[in-house]
């Protein structure tokens, strides 16, 4: 009786990684994401302050929004003044900017990149397309709302949002981080099954590990 319970717990804890071949299964972890609670309040406040002051964003132009990231990165707007810097590797980034619509092919990469980012991680969704489909609401190949696939912290509307809006979005995100409200990573872990269900519903050829830690 006791043994069976453990099995069930394990089953729930571990992911099947059904999309992978047997050979690949050994290469990837089958662990689920875990909720990591914040540490003691004073420490956490300090850490949150540091997190807000040093935002490394993933250099992944998922849609047209990437075009306004360039002015923001360069001299006219100079986002480095605010501690924001682009970072090419998802492992080291903490902000994911969804630059507008995400096509079916891209959402797969978005999910993968998002999962590879180390928590705490934040998502800024740019443009109408991420909120309710935007002008591609009837397209067969773009998703309509990004918050069904990954947790989103900040929405910036516009088509495209100007660099200034984006900057304002970053400011809002900083406020949110400092207030300790930006815990998309834990939200993702808590509702993991729901997110996974939504993702798998649209990504028909799921040939990657269930969770890319």
């Amino acid at each position: 009786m006791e043994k069976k319970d453990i099995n069930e717990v394990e089953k729930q804890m571990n992911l099947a990684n059904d999309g992978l071949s047997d050979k690949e299964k050994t290469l990837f972890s089958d662990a689920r994401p875990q909720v990591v609670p914040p540490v003691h309040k004073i420490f956490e406040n300090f850490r949150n302050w540091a997190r807000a002051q040093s935002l490394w964003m993933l250099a992944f132009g998922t849609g047209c929004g990437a075009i306004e990231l360039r002015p923001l990165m360069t001299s006219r707007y100079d986002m480095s003044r605010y501690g924001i810097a682009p970072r090419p590797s998802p492992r080291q980034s903490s902000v994911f900017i969804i630059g507008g619509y995400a096509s079916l092919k891209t959402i797969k990469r978005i999910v993968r990149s998002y999962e590879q980012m180390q928590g705490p991680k934040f998502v800024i969704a740019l443009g109408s397309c991420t909120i309710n489909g935007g002008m591609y609401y009837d397209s067969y190949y773009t998703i309509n709302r990004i918050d069904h696939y990954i947790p989103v912290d900040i929405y910036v509307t516009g088509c495209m949002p100007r660099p200034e809006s984006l900057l304002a979005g970053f400011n809002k995100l900083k406020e949110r981080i400092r207030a300790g409200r930006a815990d998309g990573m834990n939200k993702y872990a808590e509702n993991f099954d729901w997110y996974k269900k939504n993702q798998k519903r649209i990504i028909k050829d799921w040939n990657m590990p269930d969770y890319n830690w």
Partner: protein
Amino acid sequence: MKEISKSKYKNYVADRSKYPLLKDGKPEFDLNSHMFTKIWQGPQHPGVTGNMSLELVINGDEVIDCKTHVGYLHRAFEKLMERRKFMQCFPIVCRICVPEPDTNEYCFSAGIEELAGIDIPEKAKWIRTLNLEMSRVASFLMWIGGQAGSLGMGIIGQWTVTMRDFWLDLFEEMSGGRIYHMYMIPGGVRKDLPEGFELRVKKVIKQTRELLVDIEKSFLNNAITKSRLQGLGFIPPEMVEEYGIVGPTARASGKPFDVRQNNPYLVYDQLVMKMITSDVGDAYARTLVRFAETILSIDLIEQIMHKMPKTGKIQAKIPNVLNWKIPAGQTYIKAESTRGEHGFYIITDGSKYPRRIFVRGASYTHAISVLEKLAVNISISDTAALMVSLHTCPPEIER
């Protein structure tokens, strides 16, 4: 340019004997042999222009095989346009190419006007030309930054993108939008130029010219730039027509293909311009050609500002856009974008909706067939530079 002897290219024609057999011009490789590594560049990759990916098979640093994967930005524009009224397509088309939306706007509007039999007023033509040339400058500026950035010289990118931003300010003033201008509406343009616009254009032109001098000195006349780009991605003239190569890329290989001069549209026949070509055909030649094109576009803007009629109507009469039906017909409208021939093929069937609109972007062949061919046997360090030197723009490939 001419001092580069052809013998230099021999360095980049690899010794094939150490690699496996070629089949259909592509090597067959066995990944389990530990001789080859497969790596993906993109879509999450800073070196790839836009959102596309390269599947590279490498041996050491040398690329053995390259496959381009596109479709990450597929939004099904052509499908969406089939279920939108003619005027409703107008906000959509500019999204097809993000860095240079105006060419799309022009092609679409001109196609609709041709099929509906509308003649646009003279002033609208001049404003459209101005808009197109401004967008060329903006797009080229961004491209120079990309080319320098792909070689690791971020400074140029910082400068040019900033300068582009000053051009975007002009666009904003003119059309009310920074990136997506939505300015060339079927029938004309949406607003007249604001007051004092000419002065502000002149100011930005002055700044840009100064910056281009700086860039020429620091980037083009740079020993390392030359050593990286010369001989890279050599396109022989014979290849140009076979592969459908157009625009500056074709011109850098000595083929004078420029839609603006071969089949003048709008008011290009009233402007003085010369064909910029080079007979070298490598990435550095393309860089030089595009750089000269930037200056040419600025010259053209000055000419346009000088010759443009000061007053006049800016829109022809069009029917109620909600019920606009266009008689059945088909047409192909093309224009010269920064990447080359950009065209809209439009078929109407007499209803309120277009039957089919196809968008032909120059990157379609450049980024797939041509890139896949040129990328073989170069160093993996050069893939980004090669891709940028072909000036690919993914959204216009997959649309």
